[in-house]
């Protein structure tokens, strides 16, 4: 049994392609639920469909009160924050934007860290704003494990850099190394 129970991923500008590659590289046997926030102009549905095509795991757009399942990837729908509830399901809200974003990476990471504590892995990919930095800090404070894309490899390094400024991160990695790292951690 892995010591981890879930993975949360945040990505923004320059992150979509990376996310597609990452999800494509995760094997169908990947045992943890994966919750994703990506900032984009397109709707969550188009997004999750595009990701579903690439991934061998099932990819769905988050729906309020949906149960979180092993090996299922849930993408936050456009216009909503996506949060994790104690009882093991997600909830949505249309609260204020955080770092000009809804869905916000901070909101997902903080609520997931509240529920999973030190059994949570957080991944930050390329992005042009600092959404995700506070969320990752909070995740680290609860004992979760941060994984950050090496800013030198990011199209927009602002987001990974903002995280590295606030958190002590062991895993600063190239994007192509992330799937294997996640598989190892999930074992």
């Amino acid at each position, binding site marked *: 049994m892995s010591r981890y129970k879930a993975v949360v991923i945040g990505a923004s500008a320059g992150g979509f392609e990376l996310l597609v590659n990452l999800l494509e590289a995760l094997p169908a046997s990947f045992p943890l639920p994966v919750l994703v926030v990506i900032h984009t102009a397109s709707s969550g*549905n188009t997004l999750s469909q595009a990701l579903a095509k690439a991934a061998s795991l099932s990819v769905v757009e*988050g*729906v*309020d*009160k*949906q*149960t979180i399942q092993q090996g299922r990837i849930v993408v936050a*729908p456009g*216009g*909503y*924050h996506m*949060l*994790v*509830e*104690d*009882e093991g*399901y997600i*909830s*949505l*809200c*249309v*609260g*204020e934007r955080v770092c000009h974003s809804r869905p916000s990476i901070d*909101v997902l990471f*903080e*609520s997931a*860290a*509240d*529920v999973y*504590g030190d059994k949570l892995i957080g991944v930050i990919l390329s992005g042009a704003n600092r959404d995700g930095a506070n969320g990752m800090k909070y995740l680290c404070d*609860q004992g979760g494990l941060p994984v950050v894309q090496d800013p030198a490899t990011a199209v927009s390094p602002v987001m990974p850099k903002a995280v590295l400024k606030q958190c002590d991160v062991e895993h600063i990695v190239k994007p192509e190394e992330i799937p294997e790292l996640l598989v190892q951690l999930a074992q």
Partner: protein
Amino acid sequence: MGTTGREADEIKVLLEAVYLRHGFDYRNYAMASLRRRVHKVLDESGIKQIIDLVPAIWNDDKVASDFLRVMSIPVTEMFRDPPFFIELREKVLPILETYPFIKIWHAGCATGEEVLSMAILLREAGLEKRVRIYATDYNDQVLKAAKEGIYSMDKIPLFESNYQDAQGKGKLSDYYHARYDQAKFDPELLSNVTFANHNLVTDGVFGEMNLILCRNVLIYFNKELQQRVFRLITDSLCPRGILGLGNGESLRFSPLARHYEHIDASLRLYRKKL
């Protein structure tokens, strides 16, 4: 961890106090977003600990009304999710048209943007005179704003672009007068609307409605309360009545789903079976 242990207990005591003292029942709200809002109240008030909010909310009406405001921050817009309104026009209005008189309930209408959107849709379909709209919310402050039909001009570009995307028949500016930095909508649009205080959590069934719109309201409730409110909504619909939810919401996880068929599943429009 955040919501377990001490903090969870403090929130429990706080919500109990709010209910006893002010009658607003947040005890069955979804915890993750509720917790964020409790922390927002803390940040705004300068009070350090959740438990210290209890005497403040008990004794100080200002803190209490700030709490209520943060808890019910309405984030809504006219013609939010334009495809939903296209579907309303193309699939739902033709059904409603078959009734001699139409009753519509906006449950949780907040500041009324969606009520106005519906009123515009009905006027453009020539149904305005045959409709009674009930617009309810538990927060008197937002109801007051909804009745006025006045919105900041800052919001109008978004409303206008949503209206165009929803295939509106004219221009949104046909329906309002701009004065300084505010847009006042044609009061005639609201002449068939009854605004009333109704709390989905603590109040009962509401008439025999042909259409109920309750969009992005149920997401704030936990599963148990959501079921109770789904039941209330189902009981408030006439046979073959129609229910519209928000994009991120679904009847799929509810035992009450069997009482409904889809008009359009992806757009969250449902029709109650006989």
